[in-house]
């Protein structure tokens, strides 16, 4: 009977005659940050793994307890720093729920558009680096070209490209700039063709298929048990998306599909994310045509003092479910802010995916998990 416990090298060092330990990271180009993986190998086959994390731990949750609600908002941008807009949306909506206010329609529409653009940007970064890890260098140049356009829209809107702090508690600080609609329209019009181009490079490429099909399989049962969310859960076959399950911002107004996979392997996760980009583009196109006029800020006081109580609110970030559990004791500072990090919890599935695979597949599996270590370690 196989031993189901997570294996560690320090644990009595039970190595068979043919087994060795391979250390990977924390400084390794394919781990997308400072992830360290210890692999137990039998020849080239992986029989056990352990992730060692925490190199980027900054104590964000502790900092939150010493900042006011509004002061903490920029910090969440620095958790998943390639999807700052999504993190920010989750946080401001949570505090809004705690305060009992709702952002006005125009603000919700703009939030939806920017968050979907962020999903596209995040997926593009994932696609470029994931393909690069596997050995396809070309897609990176194309994906970064389109990502640049999205970042330019962010820059024009709020002045920042990466850690945007685009939203405020209660709505938006800035009205959209002149030409915002045209920029988004132009981007969306061209983008479907771009996704087709990426697919032309990869989807039927024999090397790509060989490196992704049947690699890192996660069954639906394991995915649910291990708490996987986002494209990983959907690629395993469950049609579940928070945008549909608990609609937030303005998502209930738009028509879009939730792509799913069947095998739960690296290729399915690739296909799911590719289709998600097209669907995000569809949402943007619908939103930009129906964007209502009106105020962009709800009535919130200068000093935010939510009544005592607690709230858990989550949104569908590019990586999965990002949730915030905020407890208020009635003062200006939160009593506790817990960030439910999708990358951290998705990374738990790594051990299940990697067992029985080859060393070369580890790189593909880390890539397909789409983790950001800033969020894993917080």
């Amino acid at each position: 009977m196989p031993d189901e416990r997570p294996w560690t090298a320090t644990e009595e060092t039970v190595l068979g005659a043919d087994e060795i330990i391979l250390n990977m990271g924390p400084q390794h180009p394919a781990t997308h940050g400072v992830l360290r993986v210890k692999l137990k190998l039998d020849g080239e086959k992986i029989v056990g793994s352990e992730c060692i994390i925490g190199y980027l731990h900054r104590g964000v949750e502790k900092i939150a307890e010493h900042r006011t609600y509004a002061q903490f908002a920029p910090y969440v941008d620095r958790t998943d720093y390639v999807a700052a807009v999504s993190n920010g949306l989750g946080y401001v909506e949570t505090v809004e729920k705690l305060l009992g206010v709702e952002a006005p329609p125009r603000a919700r529409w703009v939030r939806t558009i920017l968050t979907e653009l962020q999903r596209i940007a995040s997926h593009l970064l994932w696609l470029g680096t994931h393909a690069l890890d596997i050995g396809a260098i070309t897609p990176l140049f194309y994906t970064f070209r389109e990502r640049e356009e999205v970042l330019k829209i962010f820059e024009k809107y709020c002045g920042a490209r990466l850690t945007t702090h685009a939203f405020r508690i209660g709505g938006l600080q800035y009205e959209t700039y002149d030409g915002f609609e045209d920029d988004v329209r132009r981007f969306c019009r061209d983008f479907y063709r771009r996704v087709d181009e990426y697919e032309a490079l990869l989807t039927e490429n024999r090397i790509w298929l060989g490196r992704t099909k049947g690699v890192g399989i996660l069954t639906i049962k394991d995915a649910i048990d291990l708490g996987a969310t986002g494209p990983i859960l959907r690629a395993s076959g469950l049609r579940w998306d928070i945008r549909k399950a608990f609609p937030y911002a303005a998502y209930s107004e738009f028509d879009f599909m939730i792509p799913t996979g069947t095998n739960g392997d690296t290729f399915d996760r690739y296909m799911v994310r590719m289709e998600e980009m097209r669907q995000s583009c569809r949402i943007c196109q619908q939103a930009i045509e129906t964007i209502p006029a009106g105020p962009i800020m709800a009535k919130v006081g200068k000093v935010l003092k939510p009544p005592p109580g607690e709230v858990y609110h989550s949104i569908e970030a590019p990586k999965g479910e990002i949730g915030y559990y905020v407890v208020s004791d009635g003062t200006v500072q939160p009593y506790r802010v817990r960030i439910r990090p999708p990358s951290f919890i998705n990374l738990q599935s790594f051990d299940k995916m990697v067992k029985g695979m080859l060393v070369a597949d580890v790189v593909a599996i880390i890539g397909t998990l789409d983790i950001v270590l800033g969020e894993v370690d917080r």
Partner: protein
Amino acid sequence: MADQPTPSPKPSAGAPSPPRPPKPEDLLKPVPLDSELLKRLRERFADAIGEAILDRKQAIIKVSSAPLLEICRYLRDDEKFDFLTDLTALDWPKRERRFDVVYNLYSFPKNERLRLKAEVAVSQKIASVASVWGAANWLERECFDMFGIVFDGHPHLKRILLPDEWQGHPLRKDYDILKQDTDWVRENLHIESGQ
């Protein structure tokens, strides 16, 4: 325009006046929870189920830490809360049993969330739910790391974000924000003053 067909915003004298909208503060006050699920839980686990409230429309049930594992198994198997969204803790240093371990559950078939809270003292252990939901493995390790709560029966309980030799648990309220394990920092990072 006197003859416009749409109803005018002013209510006519004969119509009953609409109920006054509740004040925003009142909407945010927790109310007692009343649900079928809670009744079934009370029937089955009697005293182990404590206070149950609905805070900002979210269900919160306090449970005793003794039969926690049975409650969690029951919730997973019979009530279909098959997904552990999050597991974390709260520290209330003035209380006798200072920690609340918080379980955020979700049910795919019902599309419903539920939050469990179990009180635990510093010297006390709480049962690990890693055998019920695999996701609890790392989450409990993080809780142990940040709060020092010991999860009994956890397959591999050790620090996850901080170094193994680190002293202290940063998310406890009595751990100052500027505090750190200066000995560890000096020894491993060769930084004298810390900050």
